[in-house]
């Protein structure tokens, strides 16, 4: 049977050589590009990321600088420049494009600094939750003995009322961590840890399901038959194959982490008042939103657009990584 097949493959060879070899990730990228929403989402997310991290290098104002003396009166409560369009007498100036807050700090600089914190929290919490979720999912899927206890643990975590517990936990551990890592560092560690250990469950379930199916496949059997230890089977053969569901839950994890951090900051259980994050900026401006609606609008828009972009990326990734949809 193989004899006639061999020459035909050789005759095909020149034809094949004209097409460059394609890797799996190239196919994924091609499919991802077809999802217009995901592409736009990716562009927006990258631009927000760049604006927030690179922007402060070029922007002259410092987010925490409070003017004193006559400058304080001159610079406080400035409106964004676009207000001049319908109200020529408004207190606005191009040196502060988004205006200043009630003690004269530049709003755009604070938005960028807040974005740095929000995005860093989102990425770090996502990484932690992925690590936990993948670890528990692989253990539960691969080792039959651990499956029962670990999945019961996952169910228990799913049954916990998370937002109330998060609020309580923030209150409990804020002081000790403040002492250990400093004011901002302590809250950062706290929020990242809390969001991470309360959002790994979905990842664990998905990974476990995939591992259960994968470990019955022939290549795992082959690996085991030549005496590969479990650790290496998991790392070399199983983990690369569950990468796609992990990547999808990674994008969704960023979205949940950003929203949870903002919600905590909004309820007053997050970062300290002087320290800007998008949720904190929103919360601080709610009291005076009738006079200065822009102070509520911009942080809120920033959170919403970031999360929307991330959700669209997740949607596109899910389609791109699914081989049944890819290539259609």
């Amino acid at each position: 049977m193989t004899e006639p097949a061999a020459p035909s493959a050789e005759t095909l060879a020149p034809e094949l050589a004209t097409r460059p070899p394609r890797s799996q990730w190239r196919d994924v990228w091609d499919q991802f590009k077809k999802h217009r929403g995901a592409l736009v989402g990716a562009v927006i997310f990258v631009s927000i990321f760049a604006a927030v991290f690179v922007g402060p290098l070029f922007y002259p104002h410092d987010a925490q600088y409070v003017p004193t003396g006559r400058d304080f009166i001159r610079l406080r409560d400035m409106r964004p420049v676009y207000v001049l369009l319908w109200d020529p007498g408004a207190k606005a100036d191009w040196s502060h494009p988004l205006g200043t807050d009630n003690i004269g700090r530049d709003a755009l600089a604070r938005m960028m600094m807040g974005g740095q914190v929000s995005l860093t929290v989102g990425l770090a919490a996502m990484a932690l939750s992925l690590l936990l979720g993948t670890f528990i999912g692989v253990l539960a899927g691969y080792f039959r003995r651990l499956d029962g206890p670990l999945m019961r643990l996952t169910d228990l975590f799913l049954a916990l009322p998370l937002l109330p517990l998060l609020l309580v936990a923030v209150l409990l551990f804020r002081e000790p961590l403040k002492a250990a890592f400093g004011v901002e560092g302590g809250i950062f560690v706290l929020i990242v840890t809390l969001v991470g250990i309360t959002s790994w469950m979905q990842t664990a379930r998905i990974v476990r399901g995939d591992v259960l199916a994968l470990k019955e496949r022939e290549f795992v059997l082959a690996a085991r038959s030549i005496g590969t230890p479990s650790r290496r089977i998991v790392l070399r053969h199983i983990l690369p194959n569950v990468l796609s569901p992990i990547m999808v839950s990674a994008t969704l994890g960023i979205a949940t982490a950003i929203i949870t951090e903002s919600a905590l900051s909004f309820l007053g259980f997050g970062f300290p008042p002087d320290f800007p994050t998008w949720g904190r900026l929103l919360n601080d401006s709610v009291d005076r939103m009738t006079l200065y609606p822009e102070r509520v609008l911009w942080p809120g828009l920033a959170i919403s657009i970031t999360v929307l972009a991330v959700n669209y990326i997740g949607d596109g990734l899910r389609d791109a990584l699914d081989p049944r949809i890819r290539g259609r």
Partner: protein
Amino acid sequence: MLNYTIRRLILAVPTLLFIALTIFLLLELAPGDPVAHMPLTIPPEVRELMRKALGLGEPVHIRFWKWLVQFFWVEPQVFIDWLTTKSAIAGILPDTQFYVSCAGGDLATCDARILSWQFRSPVMDIVLQRLPQTLWVVGTAYLVAIVIAIPVGVYSAYRQYSWFDNAGTFITMVGFSVPPFFSGVLVIVIFSVQLGWFPSIYDTTHRVTDWDSFVFQLRQMVMPVMVLALQITSQISRFMRASMLDNLNQDYVRTARAKGMTEPTVVLVHVLRNSMIPVVTVIALGIPSIFGGAIITEQVFKVNGIGEMLIKAIEANDIPTVQTLTFIFAVLIVVFNLIADLLYGILDPRIRYD
């Protein structure tokens, strides 16, 4: 099925006990001392008596057991008494007197109910006072969301990739992504500050007596309900659409069409009924998370409900209230998980729990 139900109910007991223990131990670590803010002139032995009166000063396991007894034995008794004597629903039943607060002595020291530290009154009484507000707002939002989401999901799936479907997908994505603390503030700025259509604060003392007060009640409910409903609608309509899409390509649909049934019958009777099975369970699973999500919405619109009560209790370091409320949320989650699983078994005859 009955076997499965019983097994699940028995399994729910250790789950709830574990959650209760987690919550209890977490709060055990709380740094605040409830008598710390009292005047320094109080002598230490009196202070110790005060801590005892608050139920502190005993070993952890005894206090945990006491709290469990209070929650599962004392409070249900009080609740049954309340139902039979005061409430309108079961008021016709003969009055019961299961709970006797004290065998003599003054009420403050030997009342066995869970007492709130900030109000000095039973936590459950306050919960019952707050519950109607939460249920009105959240319940209405949930109903509105279901009524909107199901037709939207059905039509989106039926006309997949039409402009309606694309617009629907975008709106549900926005609904997922815009957090309630922003959408709430945004609708307040637009509809309350700029247009002045609706009041921005939910007046919980408002009583509906005539038509005008009813209209006022509707107007103040519009904004919180809108904000909550946007979120819930996006989730449910996504599920509805996915589930309809799964079913629309099935063989039985082609059979129904081949038999010459009209398109509305095929879609609304055959496909819809089958697609509703996972959606119903999603709706059941969402109910407890709505109580959690309502914490933020209640905070934005100043609704005097359970979520607001929890935030205030956390801020005031009122541990019995926080414990009880969190545990009530946990019970809701476990119960509705069970209901969702059972519903799935009842609605879908292909699923057998044996």
